[in-house]
């Protein structure tokens, strides 16, 4: 059995190694501690990070814990990203926006919003692992539906889908 501080250190090591959210259940299994013991330790660890105002933070995303940088360093870090990835096109971003808010969503539903055919963009987004298939929708023709991936969250610096801005109500002034 690990001591409280050892558990904290171990959690840090695990979250650091995994570049994604790790669920509470998985932490319990890896660390061999009780779920009810771990929850307050996690709360304390998150608080500690927040108080110390370091460059990193631990976020409870709802589906797991995630280690990431503090938002105030966004500008600095955007400068340092080594190999500049090819930016996504406006059309690809619009398609991603519809998928992010309406997932799981079918091709036809996205096309209805954007008013254009999107076969090629869907293929490209699948290849880049930004979206994935989310099963057939139980409507006529049983079309495939799509949803965003953890990679989508990483690319756009979101800790969970809840970080997406709330859509404004319909307003006439364009």
């Amino acid at each position, binding site marked *: 059995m690990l001591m409280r501080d050892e558990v904290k250190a171990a959690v840090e090591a695990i979250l650091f190694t995994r570049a994604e959210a790790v669920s509470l259940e998985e932490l319990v299994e890896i660390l061999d501690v009780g779920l009810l013991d771990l929850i307050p330790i996690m709360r304390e660890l998150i608080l500690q990070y927040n108080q110390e105002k370091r460059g990193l933070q631990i976020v409870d995303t709802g589906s797991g814990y995630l280690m990431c940088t503090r938002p*105030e360093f966004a500008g600095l870090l955007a400068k340092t990203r080594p190999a500049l990835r090819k930016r996504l096109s406006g*059309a690809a971003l619009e398609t991603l*926006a519809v998928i992010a808010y309406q997932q799981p969503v079918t091709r036809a539903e996205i096309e209805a*919003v954007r008013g254009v055919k999107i076969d090629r963009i869907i293929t490209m987004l699948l290849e880049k692992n930004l979206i994935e298939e989310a099963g057939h929708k139980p409507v006529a023709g049983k079309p495939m539906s799509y949803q965003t991936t953890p990679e989508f969250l990483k690319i756009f*610096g979101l*800790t969970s889908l809840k970080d997406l*801005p709330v*859509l404004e109500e*319909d307003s006439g002034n364009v």
Partner: protein
Amino acid sequence: MPYVVALEAFHGPLDLLLYLIEENQLDIYDIPIARITDQYMAYLSDTGDWDLDRLGDFLVMASYLMQLKSRLLLPKSPLERQEPEESDIDPREELVRKLLSYKRYRQVANYLAAMEQGDVHRVFYRQPDDTPREEELVADVKSLVSAYKALREQLKQSQQQMEIPGGDVDINLMMNRLMSMLGEKKRRGMAFHELLGSAASRKELLGYFLALLELLRQHRVRAMQSEHRAEIRIYLQAGNKHVDA
């Protein structure tokens, strides 16, 4: 002169429509359809040779706008006048709804672009550690042995296949068959692969090939190739009638 943006710059017909509405500082709830349709059509007529796939989406919207325009211009039919609730609905309503919905997602797309570039406060994940994971090989003797047995079996068969065909293929017969096939085609001749394609077995194929070489040697047929790597065509040599043996 107004600044003209190329059609390529728009992500779709709704994007173009929103642009026109903004440019003209129009009320999205009260779009002058006739004016917008004219401007929209002006953009479409000025595309040059553009990807037809993409143009299709713009054309669908064009026909919708034209339809909308004609519905607004035409006097209401007596039937419509009898159903006031129906005719009270502005035919532009669906378009407005679509434009507003699209506009919201276009704003999100802009926000996502800013997120991607780090222009707004966002978190960064760690780059995935791409040190290769340790590999544990799994294998069993059974599959090893069966792989070896299969190889030996294969080897035996290929040795059989490589044996030179014996005297059971009559080259003369093959030569006659080729001559009669070419005779049917007259001047058109036959492609090399077509000619040999009728072989039933590897041995027969070899027989046909040897027969063809012999016919060429005897100048009874010609082999022509229009250019390097082009198909080889076989013709009956002029003045050399096929004679049945």
